[in-house]
């Protein structure tokens, strides 16, 4: 019998469909989402494909409903996902904080569109970087991956599921409208590495501590409801057994761990594609759909003999501080091409300090940077 979860072979596939196929390959059991451009076709693909894999598609009454269903199902034992655009992320923020505080592994796909507010529903932008990282109240951390193609929509959705299990955090797949509707070659391998949920080694019973973290580790195992573990799940600041606490040391321990379990592993989580960086005088940084133009422009510049390199950031959060500090050390100038008024450029400036000239090459969305525009920018700064 054919495996409905893994359509091994070569396909011509749209980014959103590739994302859905990645979710199935990663073992997604449930999708709950609310229609929104430009992420609706992920929901449509999941509505068709999830039942074929024996899984659940449920349309949320809104984005809040969707993410609560996702989080609840994870504590019931599922692997689950939702998909939306920036406006939907706004509505999900409280639940994102809840997922972070309860260390609930889940995948949230954000196909970014132009904003703020309604903005332009069917046009691309890259303005959601900070709202996925810092949008909910308090201090926590998440992981965000930025694909550049339908192939990466597939690959990084699989990786998002795996990382969410490893770190017990919400993981964002941060695409944009261009990738939503881009159709390209997608190769689905015959095997995909799937990380299974880590279960407790001890037997169920009344003494189990829901929030205990084994010595030397960043997060604990994750049992499900109904297994007799007497789980005390809440987003209170709490002691290991789940009792709410207002103590300074409890708050400090929880906050620092929620922050550092990702931030202290930033080097391990760094995902970058780069080229021509060894002797580069100018470095061009980009991500997502714009990253494609960055690569094309830098290759053109090299053909013309200009000493330019590129870094396409695949992992956006945690920000690859150490990588940027290293790759940017010997360059004279850094150009950051992004479809917003400066997000990655601010992070790059933070990593390199005031001595390095970081130039924001901004477009506000709707139209992405063309290779020619980036080439012009390179010529301007050299």
């Amino acid at each position, binding site marked *: 019998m054919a495996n409905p979860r893994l359509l091994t072979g070569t396909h011509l596939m749209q980014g959103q469909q590739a994302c859905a196929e990645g979710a199935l390959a990663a073992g997604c059991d449930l999708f709950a989402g609310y229609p929104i451009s430009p992420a609706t076709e992920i929901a449509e693909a999941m509505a068709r494909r999830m039942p074929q894999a024996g899984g659940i598609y449920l349309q949320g009454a809104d984005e809040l409903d969707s993410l609560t269903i996702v989080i609840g199902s994870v504590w019931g034992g599922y692997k689950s996902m939702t998909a939306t655009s920036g406006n939907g992320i706004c509505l999900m923020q409280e639940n994102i904080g809840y997922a972070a505080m309860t260390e609930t592994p889940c995948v949230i796909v954000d196909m970014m569109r132009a904003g703020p507010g309604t903005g332009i529903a069917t046009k691309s932008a890259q303005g959601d970087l900070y709202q996925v990282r810092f949008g909910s109240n308090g201090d926590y951390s998440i992981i965000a991956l930025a694909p550049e193609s339908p192939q990466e929509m597939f690959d990084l959705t699989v990786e998002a599921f795996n990382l969410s299990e490893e770190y017990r955090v919400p993981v964002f797949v941060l695409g944009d409208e261009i990738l939503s509707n881009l159709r390209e070659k997608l190769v689905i391998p015959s095997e995909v590495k799937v990380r299974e949920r880590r279960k407790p080694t001890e037997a169920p019973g009344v003494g189990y501590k829901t929030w205990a973290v084994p010595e030397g580790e960043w997060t604990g195992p994750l049992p499900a409801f109904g297994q007799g573990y007497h789980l005390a799940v*809440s987003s209170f600041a709490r002691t290991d057994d789940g009792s709410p606490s207002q103590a300074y040391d409890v708050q400090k321990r929880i906050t620092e761990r929620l922050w550092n379990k990702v931030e202290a592993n930033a080097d391990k989580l760094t995902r970058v594609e780069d080229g021509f960086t060894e002797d580069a005088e100018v470095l061009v940084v980009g991500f997502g759909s714009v990253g494609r133009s960055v690569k094309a422009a830098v290759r053109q510049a090299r053909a013309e003999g200009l000493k330019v390199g590129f870094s396409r950031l695949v992992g956006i959060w945690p920000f690859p501080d150490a990588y940027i500090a290293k790759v940017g050390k010997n360059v004279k100038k850094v150009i950051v091409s992004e479809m917003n008024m400066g997000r990655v450029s601010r992070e790059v400036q933070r990593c390199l300090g005031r001595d390095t000239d970081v130039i924001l090459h901004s477009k506000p969305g709707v139209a992405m940077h063309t290779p020619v525009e980036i080439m012009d920018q390179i010529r301007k700064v050299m």
Partner: protein
Amino acid sequence: MATAPVIEKKEPESLRHPALKYYRPGAGGNPHIWCEGCGIGQIWYYTVIAIEELGLDPNSVVWVGGSGCTGRMCTYWKHDYMHTLHGRPLGFATGIKLANPELTVLCHMGDGETSAIGGNHLIQTARRNADVTAICVNNYTYGMTGGQYSPTTPIGSLSATSKYGLVEDGFDLCELVAAAGATYVARSTTTQPRQSINFIKKAIQKKGFGFVEIISQCPTFYGRSNKLGDNSITMLDWIKRSFVRKADWDKMSAEEREGKRPWGEFVDTERPEVIKALHDLAKAQREAYRG
């Protein structure tokens, strides 16, 4: 230095409070956070007795709550609980039940949580007919934040945010939920322990969305603000005078109904249930899949 001898109090099992074995040791605000005279503890007791009388394995019961005084109920349940966000318990509950339909999923929510911030979750869960149980503790007030009015507070009521008398009228939650499609809808009060336990049992047993509204007393805020007494005795007396049996209500004239509301069972019916339907769909599609 002589130390006082430790006297181990050994009480016979028959004298122990019957709900104590379901109480989570070391729960927050031990023994609990509720004010003197509050009705929420009574409803906690009705719930665990309903679970016991139904013979449910407590390890298969997940108790879900949200914010506020009522939201804390779940945190005293010794077995699995999920204390969620204000207004959202029913979404989380639906997710839990989808992942494991064998579980019994109970949500206890206050009146504000049920009908203000969680109003859409309430009507959507009723419409979907998800097999979860919602118990609304309606004491006409936001207690945890200090006694503001909610969407169930009767018009004219005094509260921390209606100092001159409330100018909006409240919901009838049972009518709302019935209209949205719930398959079991009942209302009782904290003056009716046995009926409350029975209604909770029937709501749990219903293969579909079960909703029980339990009118409860908040002597600290609603009682004191509205001169209904600052203790549970006078408030329970007020509740007793304000609610009439549905069978009697049906025979009363409009004049007689003035200032009163009915308690009893309003809906007990069957409709397709979404969680079973989704699993049946998945099973059929999985079997039909040929690639």
